[in-house]
């Protein structure tokens, strides 16, 4: 399983020169397993990914964690959607009342966007998932609702013995009364346990989080404790605050990990990173 990062910024694209190292595009991660092409989220990073996909790619699966704008804003600029020779599947979370198709149409319609879904040369195939298990190509996928405003999924992708867990937007402390001590009562645990690689929300420092409770995101400290609880081998901190420059991200990282004794790898995720599992 090969994983390419096309965007790991949170909330808002921030292509500022001082964000060059970690990147300014919002959530988009490509997972390649043999001929299978899976894309996690359709943030602004998916636009560049779409330009680079070769003509050999005939089928693409986009797995949306949720429909907040930073995870969907790139969809309308994803070139394969305009190529009649490519089948695009859109997977996303079920809601209580409104079908996923209807919720996606809000973006693909006026006043937000000039092209409607049914005007695309080939209508994407819509799949609703909740606490589900399914398979795409050779990749086994598990999805579970996680703690974030609105229906939001985490995804666990497995091939052979390799596991990649993706929970880009997740508020750990809000949903877990005794965090990080009880796996049974920790949102996202089933997605991340024993993963070889975890991408996890780490938008704030603990101090910043205290003023943003309920906004749906986690601190770096909580993300690290979650990774420890889940016994992951490597944690890539994801969903960087658009206000934070490269320098600020690195100083936050050093500050938050200075006193941590870690028996697993932790790093700041950067646009352009690749991982082989």
């Amino acid at each position: 399983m090969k994983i390419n990062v096309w965007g790991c910024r949170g909330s808002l694209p921030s292509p500022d020169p001082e964000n060059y190292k970690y990147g300014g595009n919002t959530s988009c991660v490509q997972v390649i397993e043999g001929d299978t092409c899976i894309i996690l989220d359709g943030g602004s990073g998916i636009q560049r990914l779409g330009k680079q996909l070769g003509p050999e790619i005939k089928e693409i699966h986009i797995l949306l964690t949720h429909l907040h704008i930073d995870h969907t804003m790139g969809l309308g600029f994803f070139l394969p959607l305009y190529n009649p020779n490519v089948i695009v599947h859109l997977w996303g979370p079920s809601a209580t009342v409104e079908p996923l198709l209807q919720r996606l149409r809000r973006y693909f319609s006026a006043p937000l966007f000039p092209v409607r879904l049914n005007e695309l040369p080939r209508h994407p195939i819509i799949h609703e998932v909740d606490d589900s298990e399914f398979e795409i190509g050779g990749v086994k996928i598990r999805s579970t609702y996680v703690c974030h405003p609105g229906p939001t999924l985490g995804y666990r992708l497995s091939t052979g013995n390799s596991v990649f867990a993706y929970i880009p937007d997740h508020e750990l402390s809000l949903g877990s009364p005794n965090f990080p001590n009880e796996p049974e009562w920790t949102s996202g645990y089933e997605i991340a346990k024993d993963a070889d690689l975890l991408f996890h929300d780490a938008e704030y420092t603990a101090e910043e989080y205290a003023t943003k409770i309920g906004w749906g995101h986690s601190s770096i400290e909580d993300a690290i404790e979650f990774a420890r609880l889940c016994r992951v081998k490597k944690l890539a901190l994801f969903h960087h605050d658009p206000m934070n420059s490269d320098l600020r991200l690195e100083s936050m990282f050093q500050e938050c990990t200075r006193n941590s004794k870690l028996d697993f790898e932790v790093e700041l995720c950067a646009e352009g990173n690749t991982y082989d599992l």
Partner: protein
Amino acid sequence: MAAQPLELILGRQFGDSLSMPVFLVDPKGNLLFYNEPAEEILGLRFGETGSMKVEEWSTVFKPTDIDGNPLPPEGLPLVQTLGTQKPAHGSFYIDNLKGERVLITVTAFPIVGRPDRYLGAMAMFWKSPLV
């Protein structure tokens, strides 16, 4: 141990935050959590009991009707909700483990997650004045 669904995790957190007594059960009726105000009424600490099966928790408190006749488990609102997946409400006496007879009123409701997943039930109850 498998993690609980998000809705039950948030339900526990919600119950943990309330000053009114709360029970949280899974679809099989296993008592997953009760909060501190519930501990006060029941005379039991959750930390000591942990989760309990329905056969255990529905009898441990010796529920009785107003005349002192034992109430079968299916007479309890929360057990009714587990059976019907509909809200239920009622009042009854319990003899708690402190040896006190307490009149409690209970409202139980099912927990149904997105898109239509039955995940268990929550009961909120409060101590009523003895009549």
